[in-house]
């Protein structure tokens, strides 16, 4: 059974049934935190309100420029004849639990199957990529975070478009960026964004910032570490990006059959 769950997707339905069955327990376990959060929210609401309305007007002004840029982008894309990026449905979800296992990096959110969330959906936070959905129940879903040992994210360096992988190293540890040689142009402070390769994540979302580049010209590979942008341990609200109609997104069009491989 363990092997079947690890190697195949045959037990996904079983997982869904069990996840649905235990979700009331997880909601119960979250109750004290929800209560505390409610109390502190209640106190902070009025000042938040003032701050947020200021923020909103600022954002609205920025957005006006964005829509102009978007239109321009669409025109340029049409000129180039390339496909437009289609982003699926966004759903807000609150974090209601974390895995108790210190070896795993997982969250549980309060939206599931019933709200149209599916396996493999990308999960984003305000600061950057959070992870992906690995299990759904009727009322909850489990998120594998980008710093889990079993997770790799295809990224590019924002500054120069250098392709790389960001591999999780376990809860709390910075991501490792392997297979870069000393000829590759990567520096401290570089921002890694999703590349969209592999099709699991839409391109362009920030993932991590490079915090260490070690190795000399004589080494075959550099040891590059990157700290996730999103505060993975302090997340409260996330956005789940579902692909419309359950179809593979346009950015998942394989370049060549040999390249088509599911990451992580």
């Amino acid at each position, binding site marked *: *059974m*363990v092997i*079947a*769950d*690890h190697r195949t997707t045959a*037990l996904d339905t*079983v*997982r869904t049934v*069990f*996840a649905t*069955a*235990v979700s009331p*327990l*997880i909601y*119960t*376990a*979250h109750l*004290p*935190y929800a209560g505390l959060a409610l109390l502190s929210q209640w106190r902070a609401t009025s000042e938040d309100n003032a701050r947020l309305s200021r923020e909103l007007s600022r954002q609205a002004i920025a957005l006006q420029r964005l829509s102009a840029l978007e239109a321009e982008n669409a025109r340029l894309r049409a000129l180039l004849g390339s496909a437009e990026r289609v982003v699926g449905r966004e759903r807000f979800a609150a974090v209601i*639990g*974390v*895995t*108790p*296992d*210190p*070896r*795993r990096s*997982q969250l*549980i959110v309060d939206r599931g199957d019933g709200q149209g969330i599916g396996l493999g959906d990308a999960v984003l936070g305000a600061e950057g990529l959070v992870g992906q959905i690995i*299990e759904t129940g009727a009322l909850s879903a*489990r998120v594998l975070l980008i710093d889990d*040992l*079993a997770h790799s994210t295809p990224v590019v360096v924002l500054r120069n478009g250098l392709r790389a992988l960001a591999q999780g190293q*376990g*809860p*709390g540890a910075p991501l490792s960026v392997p297979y870069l040689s000393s000829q590759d142009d990567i520096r401290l402070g570089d921002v890694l964004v999703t590349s969209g390769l592999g099709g699991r994540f839409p391109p362009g979302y920030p993932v991590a910032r490079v915090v260490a580049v070690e190795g000399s010209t004589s080494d075959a590979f550099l040891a590059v570490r990157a700290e996730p942008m999103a505060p993975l*341990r*302090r997340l409260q609200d996330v956005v789940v990006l579902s692909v419309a109609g359950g179809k593979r997104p346009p950015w998942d069009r394989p370049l060549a059959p040999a390249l088509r491989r599911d990451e992580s």
Partner: protein
Amino acid sequence: MARPLLAFWLTLGVALVLTVVALPPLAPPALGWFRPQWAVLVLLFWVMTAPEAVGMVSAWVAGLLVDSVTGSLLGQHALTYVLIAWAGLSLHQRLRMYSLVQQALIVFLTVLGAEVLAALLLRLARGQAFSLALLWAPVVTALCWPLVYGALAPLRRWLGPSL
């Protein structure tokens, strides 16, 4: 017969909630190593005191539920819990005679075995390195045994004598 079984599932529900109740967000992730395995304690208690009602099938289903709440591979806890129930069933008459300290020692060994098995499975499944920190869970769980015993024993007595 049916009442101890019902009590088992109800107390297991409480144990599962305790298992997943979140640590404060500022706590380091390593604090997760110190979590007692409440479900093992509840399982051992009922297997020991009501072996005619709570057996290996209950243990297997309980293990699957624990797998589901902790997000581990489906079957990992189910496997260890069946082994724990088997050991508990075959030793229950002796276990009842032991003092709380001796029982706590058995709990330590049981949870240690379960943790080592889990670490082995994780190593096979995803190449995760062994960490000696896994020794903490058995220690903390054993220390919690008198607590759980003290809480469940009155309930057990109220349900009537066992076979």
